């Protein structure tokens, strides 16, 4: 279906204080792709994500979601299609109860109450958080907050999921569960992250940003094995691709 398409062309953006963050970013994603956006701090990852659903407007260039260019007229369509999971779940969970928060989007879409109820419970069940529905968000653990924040977006049935650092603040086990969950999704997924091991597990394609420009765009495995590229973009090989200090005969740090 064509509404899973994301196309960004020559995107430029500078913050009001003049800092230029994006300098001509272009890429095109198709149906069901899982794409990682990686790069150093300040490379423009989060700014790029905010452009994808009109939280910020590009100063030059275009964003196309599905069959529509992103503009004021298509904004509500785009926001229904692109579900955005913010980095800090506290920013996203603003309603008094988990249930209200997950229902927030569907109610704003004007869906009838029974439909909202169904969607909320289904979204919560998908992330394994149905038992949390009556809890206030500030009482949840980091992993629970993250799960609920994802449910809050899923309940709007977006075709495209955009996530900013989904594995931050999570303990290893919760992180693993989240990765397994994200693997099951059929959405087009765009994930900005520093967690390159997750990228390797989850994303078939990786886009590397550096100083507001795309310096590489291709299959994840190829990019994450390119030492030179990684080094110049302030990145590092994922741990699981690095040589094991024990079995490869390298000196273990403890010696």
């Amino acid at each position, binding site marked *: 279906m064509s509404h899973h398409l994301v196309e960004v062309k020559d995107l430029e953006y500078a913050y009001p204080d003049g800092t230029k963050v994006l300098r001509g970013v272009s890429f095109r994603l198709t149906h069901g792709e899982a794409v990682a956006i990686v790069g150093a701090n300040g490379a423009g990852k989060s700014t790029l994500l905010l452009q994808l659903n009109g*939280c910020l407007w590009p100063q030059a260039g275009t964003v196309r979601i599905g069959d529509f260019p992103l503009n004021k007229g298509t904004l509500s369509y785009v926001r229904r299609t692109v579900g*955005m999971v*913010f980095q800090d779940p506290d*920013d*996203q969970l603003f309603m*008094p109860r988990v249930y209200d928060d997950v229902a927030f989007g569907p*109610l*704003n879409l004007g869906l009838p109450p029974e439909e909202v*109820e169904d969607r909320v419970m289904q979204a919560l069940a998908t992330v394994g958080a149905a038992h949390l529905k009556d809890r206030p968000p*500030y009482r949840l653990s980091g992993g629970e907050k993250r799960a609920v924040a994802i449910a809050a977006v899923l309940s709007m049935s977006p075709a495209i999921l955009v996530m900013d650092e989904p594995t931050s603040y999570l303990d290893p086990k919760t992180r693993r569960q989240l990765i397994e969950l994200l693997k099951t999704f059929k959405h087009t997924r765009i994930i900005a992250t520093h967690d390159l091991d997750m990228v390797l597990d989850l994303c078939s394609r990786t886009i590397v940003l550096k100083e507001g420009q795309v310096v590489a765009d291709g299959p994840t495995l190829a990019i994450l094995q390119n030492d030179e590229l990684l080094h110049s973009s302030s990145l590092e090989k994922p741990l699981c691709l690095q040589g094991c200090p024990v079995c490869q005969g390298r000196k273990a740090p403890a010696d």
Partner: protein
Amino acid sequence: MATIESSLLNIGYLETLSYQQTPLHRLDPRAKLLTTLVFIIAVVSFGKYEITGLIPFMIYPVALIAVGNLPPGYLARKILLAAPFAFFIGIFNPLLDRAVLVQLGPVGLSGGWVSFASIMIRFTLTVSAALILIASTGLNAVCLALERLGAPTGFVVQLLFLYRYIFVLTDEALRLMRARSLRSFQGRGLGFKVFTYLIGQLLLRTLARAQRIHLAMRSRGFDGTIRLLRPLEFHLQDAVFFLGWSSLFLLLRWYNLPHQLGHLLTGLAP
């Protein structure tokens, strides 16, 4: 720092109390909210020297604490916390109003002391009623009741957001304070100047967060109205609770029960 932390935990405890399942907790929030309002209006509408007429109103908090399985000691501490406000409102009365009103044997009580006592009793009654409302209902349900009863949505939403983010804000403040105290030695760095920087920093962080929250809301189709989906049902027991207590309050407001009882027992004409 410890006090911020512990008082915050205490707010959380008030919320925890509201998760209980007692006949009081099961009542419709609107019934409890309206009853509390009638109670407060009845209590504050007495004349300024009234004491005896206020005493029977104690029955309301006492009964609710018993039925709602609420910890009286905890509520008393919460009331004490707010007591200084009422104390300073009333403390000048004895100085300004020295006319002797009551003669208790050799001691003459001035009108000022009587009105001061009246203020403190009213304060205790109204604050305990409000605390019991929150502890038996939860602030969110109270807000919902407010909205259903026709309070302006803007006001209700403000209240909900305040309650949601006060925890995040205090957390943020706490981290700033902790970061400062960890790098302050012998009182250096703890001065007022640094404090003003902290406050400024907190304001900026709050603004940035508000902006992010707004973006998150817009991303999910927020258009200016908050829609809450929660059924509220007003049952017979809710009506009984509201009407029963309200008529008792009105009765106690118009008939000074201790007086009448006293007259009955001593056989004196009014």
